[in-house]
């Protein structure tokens, strides 16, 4: 039952994001559009490029989808609405999301296309930039909760949300999450203007539909992670816990979407430089501040 609810929430979130994305881009609110374009994808020819690495080509979209679902499986929507409340939940989110990279390398290498391959390897560089900014803020979150269990992390924010307790960590995490979900302005692996779609370029039909769905789900999973780690998870007045989780997750996802719309695509080298020379020292500072706060403030 819980599995079905979480999957439905993921699908619903992906649908809402697609609707909002369409609304912001075209100025028209069309709730049916994601379903229609999904159906259209199913009807289209799904072309296999010449001499592909067939295993990678077929596995990549599915792996991306599985990764997004696995990440969501350890994030609680409500105290008892979680698929698996692992003892190492916060670490598991990282472990699952590390395979986004593997999926994109597969999607890049598989179709035997130049643009796709550049996109795939680009994401490897992107990971070198953002990965520390995912792990180190989560470390500070786990420090406060004195646990890697995600429900305990939400529990630690009963009196004060982490966004107030460690705002620096929240900002770094959101930026890194946008880079992980390769949303604009970090959409280097797909970069429509310069790479003609990059890792998406050679995918058509049903495979592209899976890839698009997986990407939207990934955003929802990351927004849900931000909710659990920084926005007090299910805590909130009046409404039931699951409703708060959904509202916050959607708000973070929309924030990520809108922030990306008004920023130009960043250059790979700049991303790397800023993440390493500015991001990592800030993340370390965040850990130190949180450590001092934990020791000094009772």
């Amino acid at each position, binding site marked *: 039952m819980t599995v079905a609810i979480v999957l439905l929430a993921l699908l619903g979130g992906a649908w809402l994001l697609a609707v909002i994305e369409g609304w912001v881009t075209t100025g028209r609110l069309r709730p049916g559009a994601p379903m229609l374009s999904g159906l259209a994808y199913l009807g289209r020819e799904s072309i296999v490029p010449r001499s592909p690495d067939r295993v990678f080509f077929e596995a990549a979209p599915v792996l991306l989808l599985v990764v997004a679902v696995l990440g969501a499986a350890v994030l609680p929507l409500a105290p008892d609405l979680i698929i698996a409340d692992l*003892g*190492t939940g916060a670490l598991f989110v990282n472990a699952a999301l590390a395979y986004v990279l593997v999926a994109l390398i597969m999607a890049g*290498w598989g179709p035997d296309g130049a643009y796709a391959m550049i996109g795939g390897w680009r994401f490897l560089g992107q990971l070198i930039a953002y990965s520390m900014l995912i792990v180190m803020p989560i470390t500070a979150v786990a420090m406060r909760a004195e646990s890697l269990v995600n429900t305990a992390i939400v529990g630690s924010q009963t009196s004060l949300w982490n966004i107030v307790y460690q705002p620096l960590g929240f900002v770094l995490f959101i930026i890194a999450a946008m880079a992980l979900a390769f949303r604009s302005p970090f959409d280097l692996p797909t970069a429509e203007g310069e790479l003609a779609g990059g890792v998406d370029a050679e995918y058509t039909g049903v495979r592209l539909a899976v890839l698009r769905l997986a990407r939207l789900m990934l955003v929802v999973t990351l927004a849900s992670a931000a909710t659990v780690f920084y926005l007090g998870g299910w805590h909130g007045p009046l409404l039931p816990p699951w409703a708060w989780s959904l509202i916050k997750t959607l708000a973070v996802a929309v924030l990520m979407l809108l922030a990306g719309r008004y920023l130009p695509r960043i250059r790979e080298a700049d991303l790397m430089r800023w993440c390493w020379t500015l991001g990592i020292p800030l993340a370390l500072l965040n850990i130190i501040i949180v450590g001092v706060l934990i020791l000094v403030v009772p």
Partner: protein
Amino acid sequence: MYAQAFFVAVFGLAAIGFGVVVFRTSSMVRSALALLFSQTAVGCMFLAMQTEFLGVLQIMMMATEMSIMAIFMVMFMMDPGGLGGMDMSHQKRFSIGAGVSAAAVAIAVALLSDWGPVAEQVADAEAQTRALGMELLGRSMMIFETAGITILTAMIAATAVAIPVQNLASKDDKEASE
């Protein structure tokens, strides 16, 4: 208990299977990712053996490490896609001999060691993680910190070596001329 043994065996066989694929393919990326999935299967063995932290850590670390290895293999091999019929094995007899004897030693160690009684109860994942943390920052701190510093030194040294000497020389020249 039997279910656990079953899953350990299944993931163990998967690890060996992917390990074989590493050497059976000529594509560098396939080879690297086969090694990745072999290591992931080892991580799943840890999970099946209820050592959750180690399992999740193994699964997480390998994804990035093997992907980085893949790009180095693509950069440095003359036929990264394996489409040119390149044979990447060499010293075949010696390799087979070394492989068979290493496997024999590993199996002998597994069978002949006294592993002690099988634990009936294990601490839950949270308690294990805490115990591991206490170990890493207590008794074993020196070993791990030394290893960490050594790796960091090696990374800095490797980066220093990789920086083109030309730039430094031209900068020196400029300073000398000023």
